[in-house]
């Protein structure tokens, strides 16, 4: 959306809040500070200030009409902390009017909103609607102009902006009580495929997807959830002799079985074909379709609620990527939360074994991706005061090509908060850690969170 259109949209939406009978304004102001001193570079001091701001205005003339706005802005008060050298930036995450009908859980949204459908979380400047239909069916649809992002260079940007002209999608679901739900969806982003351009481009930023999502939940003790996504776009012809890759972008299914109230077992299996899954990316140099690589993973978890306050989770995952080989990850977490949630603590560990990796460092595959991570946190709330401590240690194999000679990295974050009123909380963090770039790193952060008005939701 052009800047002047965005300003006009924002101004209109902001003015609309004046009619709201339940207006809630919420925000977080954050000030950070850190210094860096790297050999071969100038010393730098970074003090970015970030402002998040949101408005929920309900009952705009009608009980069913509401307005929702949320965005952020940031500026560097000293050296630029943005990698592109700029000192300020901002963004409107969403800004839409919503009308909720009293019947059929129907709603209409207009403005900038997000849609979770297909493989992505799409941002759209347009209109969406959804409703329940008779017989357990549901229908939703959206359409408009896709929110555009940056690509790697100006030439690609022109091509990208041209191809992504409109976005639309729809989903038809069928809910059967005590059985589950099945849905079929379609998403099209852009109508001018790369091969149809006056000067054909090598990169296609458009995509067409069909999806099937499934939930089988005949009883609270069992669930099977998952989805399959198909890439239905007609891509440019591949070089002669190349095997045609699968157009199944993703299978991802999870089964959950509860044994009584204390034990839950889950199992997951997923497969993604990058040629189809990465179709339409705006970063084709990283998410490469041309690799025709494939990911397969399976795993599971065991959750034991030892008591109302104590929970133990153990998980396992085996992953295979055709071009890199096998990786196995095992982990566990212990969580404690007091009955009133005034005290919480957690202890976690995960270990990744990559002895069968065939790339990265073929002479010593075990050291390239293998690592172990330990994490512990605690939180205490006493009346208006809150304290938290969070520590993480990542232990890598000696000689890891990415670690600049180090084998161990850590970060500890200590936070103190004071809830001055029900709607105002002030907090400050100090973090200390080490990275391959900065052997010692200390950062400070001040945060003010506030809320004015009568809204019942927001931030929760």
């Amino acid at each position, binding site marked *: 959306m052009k800047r002047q259109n965005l300003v006009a949209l924002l101004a209109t939406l902001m003015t609309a809040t004046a009619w709201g009978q339940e207006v809630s304004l919420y925000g977080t102001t*954050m000030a*950070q500070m850190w210094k860096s001193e790297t050999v071969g570079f100038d010393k730098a001091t970074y003090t*970015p200030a970030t402002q998040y701001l*949101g408005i929920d205005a309900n009952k705009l003339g009608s009980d069913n009409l509401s307005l*929702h706005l949320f965005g*952020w802005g940031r500026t560097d008060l000293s050296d630029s902390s943005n*990698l*592109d050298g700029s000192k300020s930036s901002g*963004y409107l*995450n969403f800004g839409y009017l919503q009308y909720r009908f009293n019947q059929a859980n129907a709603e209409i949204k207009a403005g900038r*909103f997000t849609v*979770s*459908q297909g493989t992505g979380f799409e*941002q759209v400047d347009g209109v969406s609607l959804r409703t*329940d239909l008779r017989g357990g069916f549901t229908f939703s649809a959206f359409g408009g102009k896709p*929110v555009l*992002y*940056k*690509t790697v260079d100006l030439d690609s940007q022109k091509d990208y902006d041209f191809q992504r002209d409109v976005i639309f999608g729809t989903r038809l*679901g069928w*809910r059967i009580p005590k059985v589950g*739900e099945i*849905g079929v969806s379609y998403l099209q982003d852009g109508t001018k495929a790369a091969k149809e351009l006056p000067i054909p481009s090598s990169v296609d930023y458009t995509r067409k997807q069909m999806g099937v999502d499934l939930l089988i*939940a005949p009883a*609270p*003790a069992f*669930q099977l*959830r998952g*989805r399959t996504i198909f890439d239905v776009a007609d891509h440019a012809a591949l070089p002669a002799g190349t095997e045609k890759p699968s157009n199944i972008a993703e299978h991802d299914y999870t089964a*959950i079985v509860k044994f009584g109230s204390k034990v*839950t077992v889950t199992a997951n299996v997923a497969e993604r074909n*990058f040629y189809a899954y990465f179709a339409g990316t*705006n*970063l084709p140099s*990283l*998410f490469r379709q041309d690799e025709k690589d494939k*990911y397969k*993973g399976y795993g599971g978890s065991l959750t034991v609620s030892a008591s109302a306050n104590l929970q133990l*989770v153990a998980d396992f995952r085996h*992953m295979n*990527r055709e071009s*890199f080989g096998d990786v196995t990850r095992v982990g566990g977490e212990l969580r404690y939360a007091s009955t009133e949630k005034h005290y*919480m603590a*957690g202890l976690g560990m995960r270990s*990744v074994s990559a002895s069968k990796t065939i790339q*990265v460092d073929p002479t010593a595959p075990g050291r390239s*991706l293998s*690592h172990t991570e330990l994490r512990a946190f605690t*939180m205490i*709330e006493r009346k208006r005061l809150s304290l938290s401590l*969070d520590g993480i240690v990542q232990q890598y194999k000696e000689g890891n090509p990415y670690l600049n000679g180090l084998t161990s990295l850590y*970060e500890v*974050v200590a936070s103190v908060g004071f809830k001055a009123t029900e709607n105002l909380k002030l*907090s400050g963090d100090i*973090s200390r850690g080490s*990275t*391959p770039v900065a052997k010692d790193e200390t950062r400070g952060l001040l945060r003010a969170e506030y809320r004015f008005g009568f809204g019942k*939701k*927001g*931030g929760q």
Partner: protein
Amino acid sequence: MARKSVLQFFGILFGLGLLMACSLISPETSFAATHPEGVGAGRPMCSECHTTDVSKGALKPYAAFDHTQTFVKSHKYQATQDANTCASCHAQSFCADCHGAKVPMKPAIRLSDSPDRLAPHRGDYLTLHKLEGKMDPSSCYSCHGRANNDKCRTCHR
């Protein structure tokens, strides 16, 4: 004349279609726009209070919405099928903490005073992403492949 007839035909067809579509709409009353009671801190277990068969709008067991570790890690399914059930407790800004399309800092910093929340990219993730990206780049793609890539493209050109 012919053009007028075609327009009339499509007008009648559209009107009939609209009438048919309206007759298909469920007569059920919408469920509450907001959860009537506060759910407190921590991860809520819907089935602790809602012991009845199925939730009104979603027609699924309330246990399907229990905020277990598995739910928190794989909530994309519920977000696709039951976004309006999520909306009865969560404002859209809750989603934007992590799924903001463009965010000024990683979620682990934004939520550093709430270490109990599942905030991705804790610790020195700049190092770890080189490993995670080789093991499974599709896990990066859902957030960084189509939108939030300002930092990615600095190196990955």
